[in-house]
């Protein structure tokens, strides 16, 4: 009983070790070890190998060593799979390398990096931009300051907080630093509190009551002030007013329309002193009980304290800033629709349930196809995002157009390449087929077959591609070769059991 169990365990170990063996040697290797194990476990079957005291499990442990040696030897002789020309591993490796390259490029471009990173604010789903003219109104200062001031009281039931900002160029003077012209977002002092982001203020204890605070972006701090480490806590002069430099924030923390070098947080009294016609952007945080966060644009009517009903559009910030992914999905949809019109979709005629093509081989083919699609999607998404934000980092509308214009053709050509590449691969080893040969001649009535034949260099089969699709031979056909042909192919000439 114990011997039977150990024999079964040994058989299992041999099968497990066979997974380490290169595919083309596996059947022969497994057959040899199984035969040796059989003779070990059946000593009476062969007089020359009587081994009643031999332990099958101990014997099978050597199978792992043997399989590992065989794998290493194959790598030494053939090189790594990714170095073999035309191999599936090489194709996947090159696509992965391209995707990593695109990712690195995107990370190097500040605009593209911001587009890829998640929003830095807590509860960003509840943030909305208020516009008087839908999406178009979010790209330029469109809300009058007087409207904002009215809404701060009139919309208390809708929003927990509401903040205002307007981009403006200001001259900033600092002792021991030359005067600099900065693009400043003059904002209500609750802006960062509303956003609930990671910006913290250093040195607020020294701020005078009512004194505005300036939060510099990191790029402006480095570019204009050479990364002066003692800048935070000092007081700058902006338009003759003292402004405390309160913090340095990462550039990626500012995602709203308008390129800025700094945010100047001003108290309501100072904002109220601005000219009446001043226009800017308004951001609000929705009160959860008021209405569900809008998934895109949403119009809200509010009755003001003067009894007038006013309407405005709430545009979800996550939707607004997530436009690049929406555009990419739209480009993907267009490419999927255009693909059948530009190329044939069938991958060819393969023998179903063929004894020479086990299910795992077929599954591997489909997995490889899916991996190629996934990698091409990632590559196109990253490259189109990088290109769009690299060319027009400060114009969200142009960014979308550039991304659509680059992503659609890239996806279409990428998908065409994927299908063409898949059709030119051996379904068994997934290597590119080679040695194309033209067979036959076109006849007057097109009844004689003519086309191209390609070989798998490892002798797995032949691919017949018709020159002219006919009703009886419309797509390419794969012809499997049985192992007796393998000896003709030098790359795969390990004999199988029973071969003389």
């Amino acid at each position, binding site marked *: 009983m114990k011997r039977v169990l150990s024999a079964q365990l040994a058989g299992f170990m041999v099968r497990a070790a066979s997974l380490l063996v290169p595919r083309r040697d596996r059947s022969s290797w497994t057959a040899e070890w199984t035969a*040796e194990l059989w003779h070990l476990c059946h000593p009476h*079957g062969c007089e020359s*190998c009587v081994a009643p005291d031999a332990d099958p499990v101990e*014997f*099978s442990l050597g199978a*792992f060593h043997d399989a590992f*040696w065989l794998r290493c030897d194959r790598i030494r002789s053939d090189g790594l799979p990714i170095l073999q020309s035309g191999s599936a591993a090489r194709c996947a490796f090159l696509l992965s390398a391209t995707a990593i390259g695109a990712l690195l490029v995107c990370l190097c471009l500040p605009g593209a990096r911001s587009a890829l990173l998640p929003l830095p604010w807590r509860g960003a789903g509840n943030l909305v931009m208020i516009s008087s003219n839908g999406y178009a109104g979010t790209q330029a200062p469109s809300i009058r300051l007087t409207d904002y001031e009215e809404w701060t009281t009139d919309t208390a039931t809708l929003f927990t907080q509401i903040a205002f900002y307007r981009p403006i160029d200001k001259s900033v003077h600092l002792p021991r630093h030359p005067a600099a012209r900065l693009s400043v977002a003059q904002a209500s002092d609750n802006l960062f509190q509303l956003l609930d982001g990671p910006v913290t203020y250093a040195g607020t204890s020294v701020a005078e009551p009512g004194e505005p605070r300036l939060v510099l972006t990191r790029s402006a701090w480095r570019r204009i002030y050479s990364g002066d480490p003692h800048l935070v806590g000092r007081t700058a002069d902006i338009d003759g007013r003292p402004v405390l430099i309160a913090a340095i924030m990462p550039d990626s923390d500012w995602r709203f329309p308008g390129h800025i070098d700094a945010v100047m947080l001003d108290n309501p009294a100072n904002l109220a002193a601005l000219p009446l016609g001043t226009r800017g952007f308004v951001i609000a945080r929705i009160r959860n009980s008021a209405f569900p966060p809008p998934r895109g644009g949403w119009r809200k009517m509010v009755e003001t304290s003067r009894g007038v009903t006013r309407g405005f559009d709430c545009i979800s910030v996550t939707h607004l800033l997530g436009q690049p992914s929406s555009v990419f999905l739209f480009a993907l949809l267009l490419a999927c629709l255009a693909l059948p019109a530009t190329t044939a979709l069938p991958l060819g005629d393969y023998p179903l349930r063929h004894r020479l093509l086990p299910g795992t081989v077929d599954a591997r083919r489909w997995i490889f196809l899916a991996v190629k699609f996934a990698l091409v999607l990632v590559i196109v998404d990253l490259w189109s995002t990088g290109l769009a934000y690299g060319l027009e980092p400060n114009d969200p509308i142009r960014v979308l157009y550039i991304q659509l214009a680059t992503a659609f053709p890239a996806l279409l050509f990428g998908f065409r390449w994927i299908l063409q590449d898949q059709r030119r691969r051996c379904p068994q080893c997934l290597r590119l087929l080679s040695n194309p040969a033209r067979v036959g001649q076109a006849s007057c009535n097109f009844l004689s077959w003519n086309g191209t034949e390609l070989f798998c260099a490892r002798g797995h089969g032949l691919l017949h591609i018709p020159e002219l699709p006919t009703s009886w031979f419309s797509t390419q056909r794969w012809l499997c070769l049985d192992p007796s042909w393998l000896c003709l192919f030098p790359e795969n000439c390990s004999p199988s*059991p029973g071969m003389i």
Partner: protein
Amino acid sequence: MPADAKLSHTAAMILQAIHAGQIYGFSVMEMTGLPSGTVYPAMRRLERDGLIVSKWEQQSIADAEQRPPRKYYRLTRTGRSTLDAVYKRYPLLEKMIPSPEVEQAVERR
């Protein structure tokens, strides 16, 4: 591999065992006392270097004996000349695993 190439003692033992008529991996193990994890990789290395060749026995023979077919090994001409060169390096090899000719000579005496 050249005939005067230096083989390790283990490889030389395995080569000598095959020459002595132990043509299956398991019988080489039995003769040399080496574990399977040493014998099989060494035989593959010897085969790769052209010192031995393997062949599957005929399916019909295995079927007649109701057992799986085995892979057997034999020396090549290069293997034989390498072995002759190896005897000079390991003089006791032939005494440890006598080759058929030596055995016949001993029996004749």
